[in-house]
């Protein structure tokens, strides 16, 4: 014997009276959560996604460079190539185009200070200074990326034990 006692959008409650006179009330919604079983393929997808994410993250993390240079690229062409170690005073670079951009360099750091682009993602990225970091203004097609240069003789070994 079975009867549906309540039916709304979120859960369907089914009350069933068994032959022994036992009254069982179960919620269809609860049953669904219990039915949700992860399959082995799900973990394979997760592992693949995490592997791709970690390998692209490796581009982020680079060791400290001796010289870091800021490269400002517009539409695939390099406009400026600046040694950030020598930048101490505030320097302004303006780009008058479809969107007026104001790029500021100060104390070995660089950022987009003002921009007329609609989403202002470039301004919110803030100061960047380490090699591997980049700030992008997609509507204006401007990329600032920081590239490191390493001296060959200045390696990471502190002491050699024999």
């Amino acid at each position, binding site marked *: 014997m079975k009867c549906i006692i309540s039916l709304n959008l979120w859960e369907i409650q089914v009350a069933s009276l068994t032959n022994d006179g036992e009254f069982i009330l179960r919620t269809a919604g609860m049953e669904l959560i219990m039915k*949700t079983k992860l*399959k082995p*393929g799900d973990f*394979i*997808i*997760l592992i693949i996604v995490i592997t791709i994410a970690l390998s*692209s993250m490796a581009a*982020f993390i680079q060791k400290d460079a001796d010289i870091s240079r800021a490269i400002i690229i517009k539409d695939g062409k390099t406009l400026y190539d600046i040694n950030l170690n020598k930048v101490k005073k505030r320097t302004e670079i303006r780009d008058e185009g479809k969107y007026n951009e104001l790029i500021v360099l100060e104390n070995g750091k660089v950022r987009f200070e003002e921009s007329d682009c609609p989403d202002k993602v470039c301004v919110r990225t803030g100061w960047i200074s380490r090699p591997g970091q*980049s700030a992008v203004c997609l509507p204006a097609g401007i990329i600032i990326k920081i590239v490191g240069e390493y001296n060959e003789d200045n390696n990471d070994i502190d002491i050699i034990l024999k």
Partner: protein
Amino acid sequence: MKNIALKITIIDGILISMALILSYVERLFPIGFIIPIPGIKIGLANIITIFALFYLDIKSAVIIAIIRCIISSMLFGSVYSFLFSLSGAMIALIAMVSLIRGYNRYFSIFGISIGGAAAHNIGQIIIATILLKSSAVLPYLSILLFSAIITGTLTGFVSEKLIGHLDKIGISKALICQKLSNS
């Protein structure tokens, strides 16, 4: 037969409007202010695509995805956001169509949804690399993919609930019957 085609067109239209509402709703969450990276979205409209793949056919899913991208970028976005959302949606569709063949045997709805979300972000990064003619955006992929795992799980959970309930109500059974009589 004509009647069934008309019904499916009407269902497509309803689903497109639902997807548009969802992409408006997810714009109300100010994720862009917390993480200043373009392209991080919850991807609520993906729920509609998953539903269309399960109960309608691939053709309907493609139509829904393309028209949703066109209208939502006309309403809220620009040419750039159109290119991004279209390329992401198409690659996500290709991934989900190939994953859905192994549904119940190899993958659950969570795997399909996470795979679709990750493919969406990979598509966006590919288009960004082509547009900027530079690989400077590549490091963003890691952040986008980690967010895809979270948002993919979320949309997978919602789709699971939605499809389960529609099964109980019986709407989906009617749709499948139509699909069978159509072919």
